[in-house]
C-alpha cells in the first residue's frame, strides 16, 4: 500500500483495502490462519491491530480461528477472520453456531479454485452456494461481494455494520482477482462510514433476554464479563438461551434467525447497473466476473446490441426484485460466473421462466476475457 497523502490517492491491494475497511469500521479483534489468496489480510491486521489497542491471534487452524472470533464478539469485540476455500470449509460448523447463537462476526472468504486444495493462487467463484448452505440446518446468511478495491473498503465496513445490526455472521465473498488486484483509489475520509453497533441491554435490566426478537427487533446483546449473565449454546434454545425441545419455541427460534434476514432481502440489496435503461440482453454478474461483463457490455453496445449489466454487491440474501422489474423488457439474461452454475439458479428462480436465462461458466482457474463473454452473448442472440 502506498500513496500520496495530500491527495489521498493510493495504489492498494484488495486484501489491504479489506483490512483498511475493517479497521475503519472498528474491528479490534482478528484471529486467523494464513492461506493464499487471503494472507495479506492477516498480515495487515497483525501489523496494525496492536498499534490501535486491538488483538491479533494466529490460531492453529481455521476451526479455532472462527471459534476465537465468536468468543471475542461475545466479550464485546468487533471481530473478523479471513480465509479461502479450504479454511472456509473448516469454519462451517462454527458459522452455524454464530447464526443460531446470534453472534455478530465477519468472515472473509477470498475464493480460489477448488474443490479441496485446488489452485491456491488462481481465482474462482465456486463458494457461492457453500456460503449460503455450507453449514447445516435452516439458517440465513448475509454475504457481500466487492468488485473494486474501493469496494473492498466499503463493503468490509458494511459487513461489520450489518453483523452488528442483525447480530449475525456476515461473509465478505471476494475472489483471488479482487483480493490480489492493486488499483488506484481515493481513500475516503476517516469516519465516512456509518457503522451500526449491536443493541445493548439497559443497565440493571433484570428481565434481560438475549435471544429471539420481541416485536421483530434484534434482541439486545450483553457482553460476557458484564453485569448481565446469560447462557450461550449451539443447542436450539429459548429466549433466555437455555436448551429447549418445546416445538413452539424451536419453531420460533429457527424462523426468527431466518426471517430477520430473509424478510429484509430487498432492503439489503445493493446493485450497480450499467446501461440497463433500454437493455434487451441483461448480463448478471458479481465480483471480478462483473468487471469483465462490464467491458463486454461496452463492446456489445458498439456492435449495436442493447446489452446492460446488473452487478449485485449483495449476494445473500438474494433479492430478485430488480430482475423482476427488468424482466418485461428483456429477451435474455446471461449469467457469467467462475463456476458451473451457482447464483444463476437464484436468477432463474427470480424470473420464473418469464425470460430465458443462460449460464456462462469458466472453471479453469482463469478470469474470463471480455471477448469470451461478448462472443457468448452474440452466439446466444443469433440462436
Amino acid at each position, binding site marked *: 500500500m*502506498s*500513496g*500520496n497523502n495530500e491527495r489521498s*490517492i*493510493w*495504489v492498494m491491494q484488495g486484501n489491504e483495502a479489506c483490512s483498511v475497511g475493517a479497521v475503519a469500521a472498528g474491528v479490534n479483534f482478528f484471529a486467523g490462519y494464513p492461506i*493464499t489468496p487471503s494472507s495479506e489480510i492477516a498480515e495487515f491486521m497483525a501489523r496494525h491491530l496492536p498499534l490501535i489497542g486491538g488483538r491479533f491471534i494466529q490460531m492453529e487452524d481455521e476451526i479455532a480461528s472462527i471459534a476465537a472470533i465468536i468468543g471475542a464478539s461475545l466479550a464485546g469485540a468487533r471481530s473478523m477472520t479471513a480465509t479461502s476455500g479450504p479454511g472456509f470449509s473448516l469454519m462451517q460448523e462454527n458459522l452455524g453456531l454464530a447464526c443460531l447463537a446470534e453472534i455478530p462476526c465477519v468472515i472473509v472468504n477470498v475464493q480460489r479454485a477448488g474443490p479441496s486444495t485446488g489452485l*491456491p*493462487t*488462481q481465482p474462482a467463484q465456486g463458494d457461492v452456494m457453500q456460503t449460503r448452505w455450507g453449514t447445516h440446518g435452516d439458517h440465513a446468511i448475509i454475504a457481500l461481494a466487492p468488485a473494486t478495491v474501493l469496494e473492498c473498503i466499503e463493503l468490509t465496513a458494511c459487513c461489520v455494520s450489518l453483523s452488528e445490526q442483525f447480530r449475525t455472521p456476515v461473509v465478505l465473498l471476494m475472489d483471488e*482477482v479482487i483480493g*490480489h*488486484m*492493486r*488499483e*488506484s483509489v481515493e481513500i475516503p475520509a476517516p469516519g465516512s462510514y456509518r457503522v451500526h453497533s449491536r443493541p445493548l441491554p439497559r443497565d440493571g435490566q433484570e428481565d434481560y433476554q438475549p435471544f429471539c426478537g420481541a416485536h421483530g427487533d434484534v434482541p439486545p446483546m450483553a457482553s460476557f464479563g458484564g453485569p448481565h449473565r446469560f447462557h450461550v449454546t449451539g443447542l436450539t434454545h429459548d429466549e433466555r438461551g437455555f436448551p429447549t425441545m418445546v416445538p413452539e419455541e424451536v419453531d420460533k427460534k429457527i424462523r426468527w434467525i431466518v426471517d430477520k434476514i430473509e424478510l429484509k432481502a430487498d432492503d439489503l440489496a445493493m446493485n450497480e447497473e450499467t446501461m440497463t435503461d433500454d437493455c434487451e440482453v441483461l448480463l448478471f454478474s458479481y465480483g*471480478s466476473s462483473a*468487471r*469483465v461483463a*462490464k*467491458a463486454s457490455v*461496452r463492446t456489445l453496445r458498439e456492435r449495436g446490441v442493447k446489452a446492460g449489466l446488473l452487478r449485485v454487491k449483495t449476494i445473500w440474501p438474494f433479492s430478485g426484485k430488480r430482475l423482476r422489474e427488468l424482466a418485461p423488457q428483456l429477451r435474455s439474461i446471461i449469467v457469467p460466473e467462475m463456476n458451473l452454475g451457482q447464483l444463476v439458479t437464484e436468477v432463474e428462480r427470480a424470473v420464473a421462466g418469464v425470460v430465458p436465462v443462460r449460464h456462462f461458466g469458466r472453471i479453469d482457474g482463469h*478470469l474470463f*476475457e*471480455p*471477448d469470451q463473454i461478448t462472443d457468448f452473448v452474440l452466439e446466444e442472440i443469433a440462436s
Partner: protein
Amino acid sequence: MTKSSGRFEIRLSGSGGQGLMLAGKLLAEAASVYGGKNTVQTQSYGPEARGGKSKTDIVISTEDIDYPKATSVDVLLAMTQVSADEYRHALKEDGLFVVDSYLVDNPGRDSAIGIPFTLLAIEQCGRALFANVVALGAIVELSKVVEWDSLEKTVLSRVPSGTEEANKKALAVGREAARRAMGKVS
C-alpha cells in the same frame, strides 16, 4: 505514454523470486500516485515461493478500467525463456518487447530488445536481485510509460531504508543500458 487511446498495457514476466510483482507494483504506483492515471495491477503465479512462472499485468488508463488484465500488450518484459515463449503472442504487432538477454537466448521476434539485466545487476549493482529495478529503469526509458521522476520517487519511497542509493543506481544502470540498446538498433 506512447499512444493516444485510453488504455496502455504492460506485462512483466519471468519466474518467481525475480521481483517482478514488486516491479509491477512500483510501476502502478508511479503511474497513479505521481502520474494521476488510473491503474490496475494483477498478478499470476504458481504456489511455489521461488521458481515457477510468474507474471504481472499493469493496465494504465485515463478512463475507468473494467477488465483488469492485459489482452493486447503494449510493453512486454520477459526475464526467462519460458515467459518469452508464452507471452510474446499477446504482444501487439508494434509493441515493445524487452528481454533479459542473459537468460533469454531466443526472444522469437526480431524486434525484441535484449539487455542482460541480471548480468548488469550482478556486475554493476553487486547482486542479481537488483535485476528487477534495472529492468524497470530500462523499460521506462524505452516506453516513457511514466515520467522518470515519478519512477524514481516511487522507487526511493518504497525500497527498504538503506538501499535507496543502490536502487537509484540500479535504475540508472537500466536507463543507460536502454539508451545503448536503442543506439544499436537505430
